[in-house]
């Protein structure tokens, strides 16, 4: 119900998203839409899908950001970076989206921390979407209810699926394994170790929602001198020279 249970099992299921390897292919967003269109919160309505103004419910959306060092113009073009940024529910530990809900339709499960909506109770007041700083909730005007990422609760506990597939659809589909799923409450879990090793961060930590999902920042770039192709491995007509140049460029990455 709307109050956050004080006693939990300590399990915090969530995602770790690696911004270094995400290539912005949108496969996770599409897989999420596809799976959940028939799942727990289904259907994910699309209005005017082939018309002028398509308008639909998505649980996961991929943005692209450009970063620039604070030093500004002195940094030069080599220091700006393009970062693909997937955004879905972070299954926060202090989710105001849950506590503001007047009906109890929004709740955070004590057993694993997943934040869900009971659609039969939701009155569609939209207050929870106002309370979420991350834009993780979307209103479905056809069902008149709010919808959000379920952490694929209907996959991860689904004993009809082979164990290897009991993972969220977005995690299953990611071609670069930029999305990882696991128990962030267990410091020994694979996801927790990755977060520790890579300095995983919370989004908007000052607001106090304490997201379970963590983002791994892009790795430092190696110095340009390490990666620039050598000038003495030229192309030209000679096939051997061209091959050498290609090997150099490949190894310099």
């Amino acid at each position, binding site marked *: 119900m709307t109050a956050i249970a004080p006693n939990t099992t300590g399990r915090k299921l969530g995602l770790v998203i690696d911004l270094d390897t995400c290539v912005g292919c949108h496969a996770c967003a599409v897989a999420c839409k596809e799976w959940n269109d028939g799942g727990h919160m289904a259907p994910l309505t699309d209005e005017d899908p082939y018309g002028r103004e398509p308008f639909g419910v998505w649980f996961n959306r991929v943005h692209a950001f450009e970063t620039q060092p*604070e030093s500004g113009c002195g940094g030069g073009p080599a220091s700006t*970076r393009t970062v693909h*940024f997937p955004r879905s529910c972070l299954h926060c530990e202090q989710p105001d989206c849950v506590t503001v809900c007047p009906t109890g339709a929004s709740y955070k499960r004590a057993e694993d921390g997943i934040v869900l909506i009971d659609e039969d109770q939701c009155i569609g007041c939209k207050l929870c979407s106002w309370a979420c700083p991350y*834009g993780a909730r979307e209103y479905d005007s056809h069902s008149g209810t709010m919808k959000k990422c379920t952490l694929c609760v209907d996959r991860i506990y689904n004993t009809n699926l082979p164990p290897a597939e009991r993972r969220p659809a977005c995690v299953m589909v990611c071609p670069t394994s930029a999305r990882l799923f696991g128990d962030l409450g267990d410091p020994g879990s694979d996801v927790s170790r990755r977060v520790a090793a890579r300095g995983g961060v919370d989004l908007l930590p000052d607001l106090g929602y304490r997201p379970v999902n963590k983002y791994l920042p892009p790795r430092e770039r190696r110095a340009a001198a390490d990666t620039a192709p050598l000038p003495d491995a030229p192309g030209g007509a000679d096939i051997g020279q061209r091959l050498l140049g290609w090997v150099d460029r490949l190894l310099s990455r």
Partner: protein
Amino acid sequence: MHPAASVILFTVTSGMGYGLLALLAVLGSLGMLPPDPGLGLAGLGTALALITVGLLASTFHLGHPERAWRALSQWRTSWLSREGVLAIMAYPPAVLFGGGWVLAGRTDGVFALAGWLTALLAVLTVCCTAMIYASLKPIPQWRNRWVMPGYLAMALATGAAWLALLASVFGIGRGLTDIIAILGLGLAALVKLAYWRHIDSAAPIATAAAATGLGGLGQARLLERPNTQENYLQKEMGFRVARKHANRLRRLVLIGGFGLPLVLILAASFLPAAMSIWLLALALVGVTIGALVERWLFFAQAKHTVTLYYGAATV
């Protein structure tokens, strides 16, 4: 934030209704307004009608109005739930107080007690309405100390404008109600000015770098949105039209909603009842339009942290 007509209508009319209800209950219980059946019926009837219309309007905002009763269940954590519970709790004492005033011609004893309880519940309900907004961390224009005084002062001013008109119509307690309306309007104008000054000068609470966790790489700027058409988040949380005209609309609220009505009420207090009614009615029209525009601005000028994911540099 997207200003929904139903929510604007709800907050303005219910605020008016609770303001009028609280004023009648306090002045009646103090014996400062004699229990005249006409004024009691018209005054309390208007107040309860405004509140009821407001509550009904708010349900039109819902995706499932038929489930609205469920909203009463989570009063332990949700300000929306608390508002609903208190709003309903205010009816019985209000009806008892009204019955005493209209039928028994009395506002003392148990009726006075009912009056005080009515006033308390009316004020608390307006506080809950304000807290629905003031508790939302992602919206700095709402989560600040001027929001609750703003809602209370607007309820007082709009309720007092009604009371001044009704007192004039029934020829009871005129001088007193004029003074209260003038003070209420002055107070509301000052509080709104302070609120606007605050939201114009407050430091941002978040940056795009913090929203993406990319602060380690410097500044972050949106390069590409995930979708080519606007989605729910952009329509609901990324509303932009208002800020362009904000200053003009604020002047409209200050002059049309507070200043002009104040002058009209002041002038009316020197006129005989028959003439003052027209001025007071005009003042009420001005106050109502002002309150609607003020509330529209309150929504439209609010910026949500979600806009950081759609191009805003700071919120």
